[in-house]
């Protein structure tokens, strides 16, 4: 599991933070090339995510186009997972980028990655849509109306091969980390993230004591964090 500690692709500030923290041995250097995340030390001419957000903030819509090319798949994946059908997932992605465009001036690089920011925007818009839908369904009484669509053909959008390698590897790491959680920890965290449930609602849903759910969320998230630090979305170079 040393591979996941490879942090050469992270920005210097972040590396410093890791060096200050309590649990890290020096990362092995031989695995750096397996992380095709933007690398501030490399000669790549691709603009950093945070620069794209800064350009969006001053009204450059081509920056949104580039962010779309980088993260549309991630946003679409989370949107689809939450809303369960294509048309709504499309709507969520459009709304999420529109919000990113509006809020670009408020993005604070110190508080996380652009990809994380975009992802959390998409998640919120998707949860909003599901809540609005369930309100509508409560009113019209046709909760069973929406059947999930067939999955869209993989590869319908070519994207960037390097990005997709990055995504594949990151996804593998995330799944491996989730696999290390206890099933109840994983369930509690997934209910919170994908269904937008509060801890009390999770306790109610699972018929478990609230304190137990809180412990599962806390320990599970801490474990995931420790495990996933090396594959965090670009911290913004």
């Amino acid at each position: 599991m040393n591979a996941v500690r490879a942090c050469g692709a992270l920005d210097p500030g972040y590396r410093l933070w890791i060096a200050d923290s309590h649990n890290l041995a020096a990362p092995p250097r031989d695995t750096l090339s397996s992380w095709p995340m933007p690398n501030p030390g490399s000669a790549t001419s691709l603009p950093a995510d945070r620069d794209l957000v800064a350009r969006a903030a001053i009204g450059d819509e081509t920056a949104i186009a580039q962010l779309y090319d980088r993260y549309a798949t991630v946003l679409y994946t989370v949107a689809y997972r939450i809303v369960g059908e294509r048309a709504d997932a499309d709507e969520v992605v459009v709304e999420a980028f529109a919000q990113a465009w509006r809020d670009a001036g408020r993005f604070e690089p110190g508080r996380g990655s652009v990809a994380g920011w975009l992802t959390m925007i998409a998640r919120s818009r998707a949860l909003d849509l599901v809540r609005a839908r369930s309100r509508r369904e409560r009113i019209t009484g046709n909760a069973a109306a929406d059947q999930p669509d067939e999955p869209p053909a993989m590869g319908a959008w070519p994207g960037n091969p390097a990005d997709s390698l990055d995504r594949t590897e990151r996804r593998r790491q995330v799944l491996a980390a989730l696999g290390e959680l206890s099933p109840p920890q994983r369930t509690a965290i997934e209910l919170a993230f994908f269904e937008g449930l509060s801890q009390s609602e999770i306790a109610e849903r699972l018929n478990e004591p609230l304190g137990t759910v809180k412990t599962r969320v806390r320990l599970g998230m801490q474990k995931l964090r420790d495990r996933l630090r090396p594959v965090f979305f670009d911290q913004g170079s």
Partner: protein
Amino acid sequence: MSTPDDASIRDLAAAYALGALSPEETRAFEAYLAGSPEARQDVAELRETAALLAVAGPERQPGPELRQRVLDRVRASKFATLPATPARPPRSRIPLMVWAGLAALLVIAVGLANRVRVLTSTLVVRDSTIAAQQQALSEQGSQLAAREQILASIFEPGVQLVQLTKQGDPDPRIQLFWDRLRNTAVLHASKLKPTPSGRTYQLWFIRDGKPVPSVTFDVTAEGSASVSGVTVPTGGEISAAAVTEEPTGGSQQPTTPILLVGTAPKS
């Protein structure tokens, strides 16, 4: 030094990053965050962790047309509103509580703005209704003033009534209120047939046996007309008043037979 309280509130970070706290817990935790850079760093990392959950499910590819939809939407909103603010130099640390307060204010402001927008459009509608009513009122007001003037001239001392009628038809009627002191008259017509286009009614005074041209007038669809301030010719004896139909603009001499006529009282 951390206290047991600190520890228990710090435990909320993970659920906070997932948005899974109750509203009360969220407020308490944000108050704590405002004073703790370590906690903010903790939350930033836990948020990144949460964001990675997005890629855990089966990967879904957006359709190829979605990119254009996103860009169209962004371009459309570019014209509606430019992005909130241009890029700024890194901000000083502002406590989260302040942001929470600002966010709450923003929510209130947006609510108020919506309310104002609704009220404004209601007001615009009301304004136009009021304007229309004011115009109607002012029209009625000027009609009333005209009536008032007519009535006043009718009730002046020395006003005499000359009634013009049509032979063989009791309906059409013209009343001429003739102020003999001022040599003016007010004409009030009722139940006259509207004239064809290019034609008009003309009033004549018969002075010393000869017609003297006076005002022309048209009647409404109902056949009525009011003309005030009609000058009554002087310099001779007015024996009668008459009305003919003439080309628009009137004539110097009657070109058609008399339609209505009434004799004036002797002075």
